[in-house]
């Protein structure tokens, strides 16, 4: 892998950039691999990378039905944070955050991880109680989290409407300073380039159409580009986890929903942090290009359509203007939707399945992007050792039978 740096940039500028090497190969699928990963998004590519780097397993194919990084990796709102309530979540998300902190250097690819902080707003007494519980739990798990008063919020993010006369006034916020944003495409590309360099075959335009089993054991996958033999199949197909699992004869506690997002036209910097509000259901940040990126809650119905709509964003926009009155004269430039896998407890499923050699990493809901490095890291361990790492052990499928759910809905007291 040719190293990227200011020096390589200067050298290549001299050659008019004619000599940059390919970031990844486009190999033909081989007959067999030790591990086949279904899904060439951030999580799948990270899994492949850590399989190669941490476990020395390089006979790995990543099968992507479209273009790599083209699913939710390309469609999310790029928020990275680890301020989760339960110990199990804090552990895996903070492992992820720690990996984010060195990721550009690790991958030699600038993923533009920017720790500009994540604010979670509280608008009523219920929110404040919940926020306090979270801040304390997060802090005691060794993760950074602090409370800001409305005056401190105003100082930290001046364009927020902190007027006590607002319909839902801002009464406080939690701030995770280590949270922020990263460049979503770069994460997929960086992992792909690094995995490819370690021998992983990334095969685009290759859709898995079936999973072959002998008894309860996986023996291969059928694809649009032929049959591939393997003893280990790992599903990392965010949004489509149920579809892949069905090929292995499994039903999952997952439903797929549209999640809508949009960006504004680029403007000069006005927002230097990430702001989230559960009550009015929005989250917003400003990209390095100057666009305000925002998202809302999921649409209620099951869908694989990646279709956006108008009513969801009308609601979203009213909330945005309630929080940031100054954005009223900005304009929406693009809107889109991703398809997210939602588990009943809003936590992922990462681990083994009743089918031997079939592993699942999915159900990340609306928050998968931030987990990319940690999820890949733990999942690689699970695949390599055929047993979960302590980080992902609590996220096993069995929890739905035992009742040991990890409820991260956030809005306490709501029947889920």
């Amino acid at each position, binding site marked *: 892998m040719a190293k990227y740096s200011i020096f390589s940039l200067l050298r290549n500028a001299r050659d008019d950039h004619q000599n940059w090497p390919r970031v990844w190969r486009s190999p033909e699928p081989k007959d067999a691999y030790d591990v086949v990963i279904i899904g060439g998004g951030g999580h799948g590519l990270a899994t492949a990378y850590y399989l190669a780097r941490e476990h020395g397993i390089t006979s790995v194919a990543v099968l992507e039905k479209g273009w790599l990084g083209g699913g939710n990796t390309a469609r999310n709102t790029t928020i990275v944070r680890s301020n989760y309530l339960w110990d199990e979540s804090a552990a895996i998300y903070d492992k992820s955050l720690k990996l984010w902190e060195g990721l550009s250097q690790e991958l030699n690819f600038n993923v533009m991880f920017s720790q500009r902080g994540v604010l979670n707003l509280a608008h009523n007494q219920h929110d404040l109680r919940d926020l306090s519980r979270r801040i304390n739990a997060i802090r005691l798990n060794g993760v950074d989290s602090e409370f800001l008063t409305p005056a401190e919020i105003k100082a930290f993010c001046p364009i927020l409407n902190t007027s006590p006369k607002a319909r839902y006034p801002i009464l406080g916020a939690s701030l995770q300073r280590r949270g922020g944003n990263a460049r979503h495409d770069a994460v997929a590309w960086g992992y792909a380039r690094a995995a490819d360099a370690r021998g992983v075959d990334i095969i685009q335009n290759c859709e898995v159409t079936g999973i072959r089993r002998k008894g309860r054991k996986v023996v291969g996958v059928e694809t649009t580009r032929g049959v591939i033999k393997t003893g280990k199949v790992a599903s990392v197909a965010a949004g489509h986890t149920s579809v892949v699992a069905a090929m292995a004869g499994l039903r*999952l506690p997952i439903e797929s929903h549209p999640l809508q997002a949009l960006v504004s036209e680029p403007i000069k910097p006005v927002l230097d942090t990430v702001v989230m509000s559960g009550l009015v259901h929005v989250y917003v940040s400003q990209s390095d290009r100057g666009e305000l990126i925002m998202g809302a809650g999921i649409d*209620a*119905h099951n869908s694989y359509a990646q279709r956006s709509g108008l009513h969801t964003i009308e609601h979203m926009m009213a909330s945005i203007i309630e929080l940031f009155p100054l954005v009223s004269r900005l304009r929406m430039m693009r809107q889109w939707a991703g398809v997210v896998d939602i588990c009943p407890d809003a936590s992922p499923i990462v681990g083994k399945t009743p089918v031997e050699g079939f592993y699942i990493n999915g159900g990340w809901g609306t928050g998968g992007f931030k987990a990319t490095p940690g999820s890949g890291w733990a999942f690689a361990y699970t695949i390599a050792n055929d047993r979960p790492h302590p980080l992902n052990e609590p996220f096993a499928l069995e929890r*739905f039978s035992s009742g040991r759910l990890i409820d991260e809905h956030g809005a306490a007291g709501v029947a889920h």
Partner: protein
Amino acid sequence: MLEITCPWCGPRDETEFDYGGEAHIDRPKDPDKLTDEAWAEYLFMRKNPKGPHLERWMHACGCRRWFNVRRDTFTHEITAVYRMGEKPPGDGA
């Protein structure tokens, strides 16, 4: 925004409806006899297909009646609407 035809009120905007997820999941008659796994099947496990889906909707802002819909989760095309207790038309999903 989807347009859903309430069997009573006719075509209305999606925003008037509540979604109830997969249809035809019957509550087990004798839950105590089920294993934890079988109970989890009923509670949590869903088909979640990409394609035709039999699902429940309720006209929340209208007549408040629940009914069934066959809708393709990829194309969003609605190919059937039928009342509670009725079987899906044709061969189901």
